[in-house]
């Protein structure tokens, strides 16, 4: 890629960097570590229910926002599907084709490929949009000692995947679906027998192994997104917000975000395939 700059662009860039440097020098003493790192805005909707009556409003709002983004991108393509794709359709087809190929590689039963593909593709699209949102400045609400602090475009967007509730929901959903598919594919008796293999003595270990799956599945995504966010905040504070945060947002939001979304959906396929295949 060759970048050509006109004289006007060069003058603009020069002025931009000079202003940036001057503002930076004057702002350095007043930069503070933002309050409320790792805190969540929690509302007690039904106090008598205890922990079950709590709501995490930002997660709910951003989840619906991401659903709207995905529908707004995919519905016009799906309504108007062409044999010769335009750019957006080709992009979507490329992603979905990759997931379909990996589903076909891991699941040998023909009739189960399509449902598993739907689950994996849905998870991938939601998680990738939500992770990549953490690479852009946006709206975030954190509680501090003086009440709620709304940061408009001084922090990244709030990602639902940086909330363990979202990730745990999807991981438990994958666990239940994998057993439903297992019962469907092998039959109830064989599925039940699978718990007592190779010997009935192994039942507790099998049980713990199954229960550990959703924990590792959800904590992996949570640790990456949440830990990345906190790391960016602290490193940005240490260097007083000079140039580096943009690249850190890019690395943790786009690079790590896309890889983790891929890992989440591929592991979902792998867990389902482990239940479905006759061992």
């Amino acid at each position, binding site marked *: 890629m060759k970048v050509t700059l006109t004289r006007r662009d060069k003058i603009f860039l020069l002025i931009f960097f000079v202003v940036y440097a001057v503002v930076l020098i004057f702002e350095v003493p007043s930069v503070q570590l933002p309050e409320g*790192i*790792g*805190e969540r805005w929690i509302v007690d909707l039904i106090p008598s229910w205890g922990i079950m009556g709590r709501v995490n409003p930002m997660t709910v709002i951003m989840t619906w926002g991401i659903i709207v983004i995905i529908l707004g991108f995919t519905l016009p393509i799906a309504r108007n599907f062409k044999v010769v794709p335009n750019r957006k359709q080709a992009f979507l087809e490329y992603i979905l084709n990759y997931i379909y190929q990996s589903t076909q590689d891991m699941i040998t039963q023909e009739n189960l490929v399509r449902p598993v593909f739907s689950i994996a593709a849905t998870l991938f699209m939601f998680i990738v949009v939500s992770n990549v949102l953490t690479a852009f400045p946006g709206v975030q609400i954190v509680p501090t000692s003086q009440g709620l602090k709304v940061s408009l475009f001084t922090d990244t967007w709030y990602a639902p995947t940086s909330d363990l509730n979202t990730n745990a929901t999807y991981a438990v959903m994958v666990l239940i679906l994998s057993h439903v598919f297992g019962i469907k594919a092998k039959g109830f008796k064989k599925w039940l027998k699978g718990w007592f293999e190779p010997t009935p003595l192994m039942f507790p270990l099998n049980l713990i192994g199954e229960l550990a799956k959703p924990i*590792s599945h959800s*904590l*992996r995504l*949570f*640790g*990456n997104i*949440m*830990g990345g966010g*906190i790391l960016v905040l602290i490193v940005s504070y240490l260097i007083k917000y000079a140039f580096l945060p943009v690249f850190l947002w890019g690395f943790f939001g786009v690079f790590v975000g896309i*890889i*983790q979304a*891929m*890992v989440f959906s*591929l*592991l979902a396929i792998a867990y389902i395939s482990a239940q479905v295949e006759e061992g």
Partner: protein
Amino acid sequence: MSDLTMAEAIREGLKFLAAGVCMGIGAIGPGLGEGHIGAHAMDAIARQPELAGPIVGRMLLADAVAESTGLYSLVVALILLFVV
């Protein structure tokens, strides 16, 4: 910070120490694992340079799985720092 009793001060200090030790030791395993993955990917690319694209893709995927134990220790360290 000056009005802490001795027990509270020890508790605060041990919290930070625990977070540091947790993160430091927890990073050993993923470091070794990702090193192995990277080394073998390099071997594979050296043997068949035309397969570099798929190998790098799968290497990144395996890296992401290998670093999950490190992320557990990161989560534990963050809980120690911000929640406990």
